């Protein structure tokens, strides 16, 4: 075996550490680190594991209170109380960089990783959601990425038997080099069976189980903390390979282990592999940990200590079991035919001590490695880009000129950002586990919780165009839209998880978006009383040519006490009256209308009054719970016209028309139809409840107007739109397959 390289400052810099950070390592150890130690510091202090450039901002978010059972970041996933003796574990995470170089495995292991975060806590995963962002489909590479990512998510989740129930697919040329792939998982756990990622109790035994450790994924966490470049392709070995069958065994065995008397703590091995799980568990338990790498089951011979420590081979877990109870744990692992080995034990000296071939190769105070311990914390500079002012005040009137609004509406219905995404969602099993009450395609997904009357609503949302134009308001709008989507099912939002996808934090003009977005998110979460339970930060989403739109994805959870009091998003009964909650303004800024029809991203994000938004949602939920509402649909991308069409066609089995009259207004037709003003919801009600709903709205001090009636086979929005429902539906449902086909034949 070749010997380890000599550790120098130059080598530390190559590992992505700064000079200052290397100095601190020398100080902590009181000597030059060994090569494996350098590797350990470099991954643990990478952005991916340490959040060193983001944690200062993240701490400004509301991170406790409400129904939260664990403070943000304390465990592998957020944890909220849903009553009935149950808690929900949920989290969202990015897998952007792996997907940029190997979309299938990148996405598959993204799902695998987030699932492990959930079942590590003892929770059985019940649902998966995905927020996907790609560049234009006219570029072959982007179609390859879309295809690979969708297959990867599907194959992994389908095999594991976890339904993929919701999500979003967004296209913008900024994502061309750098797709944004965020996976969210939700699980349910008995409150008295929650497992913790902790190593404690001197002499307790450390056991590794699951797949063998190979050379895949070495330095994945460091890779994710760099910009994407041509060299990224050569880092393909940094991408891990997923095995969903192994994950299924891991899932069942872990849940059984958590129910046994043997368990002290457990953590999955994701980024930074054994290094991260052992040091974090020790730091969390204020203990030390001693492990012997010779015991680790390996996939190939001749692996060095450095490689074993940093391997990101998938489907592995590390657990600490009570001394004397090893046999009980091992019986469970044998039952599921999983490999397992006793690696070492817990100590009380606070050190992470690793031996290999009879020598101690790594001896570091565990706490110095961890977030909240010795990992560095930086306050980065933020500077507003000058160009943004120009963009914000741009005169949008030229785009308001009269045109054939039927044609404009049809074009928007075929926009990849608006059209039906069944091509994607049909590749996912969305009903396995038989809990899915409302699946993909509506506002939020709604799942039953077996054995209770509860419904759990969930959604991911973010309009990155708004965040680009106005990061603070844009992030608040993302929270507001997520909450509105949850409320449209009848459920009450209770908490969020977030995945913050941004550019290079060392560039002040890039960090500005991050800082502002976090501030806006915090403001909105405080109003809705939806604390941030945790999440993930992904920086460096830029390449030489382009930078992504800043994309803070919000994953929100809601609760519906009585599942029977839910509503759908689509119109159902001829003769029902249509009500619009909220006001339409001259808010074309950042709209899909401007982007898709005029190839322009300009103006400012729509105004948002959080108090009005909150009152609107409370009023909506109240009306739903009284049984007055037949359907409720959020009005967002594509504006009122698109939302109305969706209400008419989202139930594919039973299309239905509507006649709308928007009344006197000084607004241009373009604004009336396509402005994306916030805080609006389209409702349909039985005429006999019309008065009650309008009275409740008045009492709630929110704008509300009766705007039309359901019926016929045409969608009429007087005096501008008059379309056959069939034609609108055909356009909406066939756009994506058609686009994929025509783009291929055009080459």
């Amino acid at each position, binding site marked *: 075996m070749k010997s380890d390289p000599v550790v120098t400052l130059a080598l530390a810099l190559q590992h992505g550490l700064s000079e200052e950070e290397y100095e601190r390592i020398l100080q902590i150890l009181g000597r030059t680190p060994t090569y494996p130690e350098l590797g350990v510091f470099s991954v643990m202090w990478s952005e991916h594991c340490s959040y060193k450039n983001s944690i200062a901002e993240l701490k400004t978010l509301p991170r406790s209170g409400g129904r939260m059972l664990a403070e943000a970041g304390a465990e592998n996933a957020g944890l909220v109380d849903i009553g009935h003796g149950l808690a929900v574990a949920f989290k969202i995470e990015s897998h952007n960089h792996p997907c940029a170089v190997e979309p299938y495995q990148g996405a598959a292991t993204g799902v695998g990783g987030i699932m492990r975060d959930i079942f590590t806590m003892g929770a059985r995963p019940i649902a998966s959601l995905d927020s996907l962002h790609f560049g234009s489909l006219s570029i072959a590479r982007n179609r390859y990425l879309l295809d690979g990512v969708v297959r990867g998510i599907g194959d992994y989740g389908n095999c594991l038997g976890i339904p993929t129930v919701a999500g979003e697919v967004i296209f913008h040329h900024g994502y061309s080099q750098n797709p944004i792939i965020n996976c969210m998982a939700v699980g349910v756990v008995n409150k008295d069976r929650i497992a913790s990622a902790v190593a404690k109790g001197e002499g307790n035994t450390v056991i590794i189980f699951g797949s063998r450790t190979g050379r895949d994924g070495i330095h994945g966490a460091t890779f994710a903390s760099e910009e994407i470049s041509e060299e990224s392709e050569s880092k393909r070995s940094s991408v891990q390979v997923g095995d969903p069958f*192994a994950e299924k065994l891991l899932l069942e065995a872990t849940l059984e282990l958590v129910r046994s008397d043997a368990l002290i703590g457990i953590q999955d091995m994701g980024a930074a592999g054994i290094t991260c799980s052992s040091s974090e568990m020790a730091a969390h338990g204020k203990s030390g940990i001693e492990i012997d790498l010779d015991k680790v089951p390996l996939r190939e011979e001749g692996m060095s200590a450095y490689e074993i420590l940093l391997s990101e081979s998938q489907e592995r877990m590390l657990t600490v079991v009570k001394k004397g109870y090893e046999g009980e744990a091992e019986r469970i692992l044998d039952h599921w035919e999983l490999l397992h080995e006793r690696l070492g034990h817990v100590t009380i000296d606070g050190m992470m001590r690793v031996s290999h071939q009879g020598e101690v190769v790594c001896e570091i105070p565990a706490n110095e490695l961890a977030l909240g311990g010795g990992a560095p914390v930086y306050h980065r500079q933020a500077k507003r880009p000058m160009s943004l002012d120009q963009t914000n005040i741009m005169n949008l009137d030229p785009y308001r000129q009269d045109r054939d609004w039927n044609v404009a509406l049809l074009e928007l219905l075929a926009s990849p950002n608006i059209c039906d995404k069944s091509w994607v969602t049909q*590749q996912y099993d969305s009903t396995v586990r038989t809990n899915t009450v409302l699946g993909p395609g509506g506002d939020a997904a709604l799942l039953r919780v077996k054995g209770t009357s509860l419904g759990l609503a969930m959604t991911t949302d973010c309009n990155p165009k708004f965040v680009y134009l106005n990061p603070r308001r844009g992030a608040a709008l993302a929270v507001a839209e997520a909450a509105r989507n949850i409320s449209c099912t009848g459920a009450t939002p209770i908490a969020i998880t977030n995945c913050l996808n941004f550019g290079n934090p060392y560039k002040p003009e890039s960090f500005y978006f991050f800082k502002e977005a976090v501030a806006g998110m915090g403001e909105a979460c405080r109003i809705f009383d939806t604390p941030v339970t945790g999440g993930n930060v992904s920086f460096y989403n830029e390449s030489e040519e382009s930078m992504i739109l800043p994309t803070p994805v919000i994953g929100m959870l809601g609760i519906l006490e009585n599942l029977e009091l839910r509503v759908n998003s689509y119109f159902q009964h001829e003769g029902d009256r249509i009500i619009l909650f909220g006001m339409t303004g001259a808010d074309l800024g950042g709209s899909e209308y401007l982007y898709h029809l005029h190839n322009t991203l300009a103006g400012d994000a729509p105004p948002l009054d959080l108090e009005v938004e909150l009152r609107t949602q409370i009023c909506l939920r109240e009306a739903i719970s009284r049984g007055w509402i037949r359907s409720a649909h959020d009005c967002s991308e594509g504006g009122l016209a698109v939302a109305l069409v969706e209400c008419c066609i989202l139930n594919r089995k039973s299309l239905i028309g509507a006649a709308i009259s928007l009344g006197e207004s000084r607004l241009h037709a373009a604004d009336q139809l396509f402005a994306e003003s916030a805080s609006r919801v389209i409702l349909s009600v039985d005429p006999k409840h019309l008065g009650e709903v309008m009275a409740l709205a008045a009492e709630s001090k929110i704008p509300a107007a009766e705007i039309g009636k359901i019926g016929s086979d045409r969608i009429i929005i007087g005096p501008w739109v008059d379309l056959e429902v069939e034609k609108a539906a055909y356009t909406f449902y066939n756009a994506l397959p058609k686009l994929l086909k025509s783009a291929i034949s055009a080459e």
Partner: protein
Amino acid sequence: MRFGIVVFPGSNCDYDCYWGLKNDLGFQVSFLWHRQRSFEDIDCIILPGGFSYGDYLRSGAIARFSPIMEAVLKHARKGSPIIGICNGFQILTEVGLLPGALLRNESLRFIHRPVHLRIEQQDSKFTKGYSVNRTIELPIAHGDGRYFASQHILTELENEGRILFRYSSPEGRLTAAGNPNGSINNIAGICNSEGNVMGLMPHPERRLNASVGGTDGRPLFMSVAEAFA
């Protein structure tokens, strides 16, 4: 009626069958672990959907060699009922209890969506509870669901009335658009010549409760319970 659900390590619709048969239909249900070599007091065996042993090889190809399969074959020879759903159907063809094979979907993609099925036989022990020539709606969720068999077998299946479910339009017409995966003659489910072993690709266990999609799966299990009581 006691149902026994075989659990392979990669089964993932086992619990769905268990929950629905027990709570929505009130049957007695138990799980049978794949390494078990025998079982007692089971009237009807269910081979559930999932990815039995990962199915990285041909779907169901490894499951046919699992320890429990001897006992399952014995159960079949006794004339007792067996239902294979999705991966279970694939396993039944691999082990030779049902003829034909399930190939990769025509689109080469995994497909999950509700499909319409036309009930082809009124008098089979699995479809008694349905009225013939009406259609029902069940979801499919598979990558390898394209039924295929030689002409000789197809003729036998047709002549003996062993094709129980076909993919169709909502009105019951056998169209290409109604056939989600390219199955030959729109075949979605068949039984053996003795009429006690049945396999189908769609998931009846996902349609046992109105709040999660509907109840079109109920008559299937009720039929079995009545016919083999």
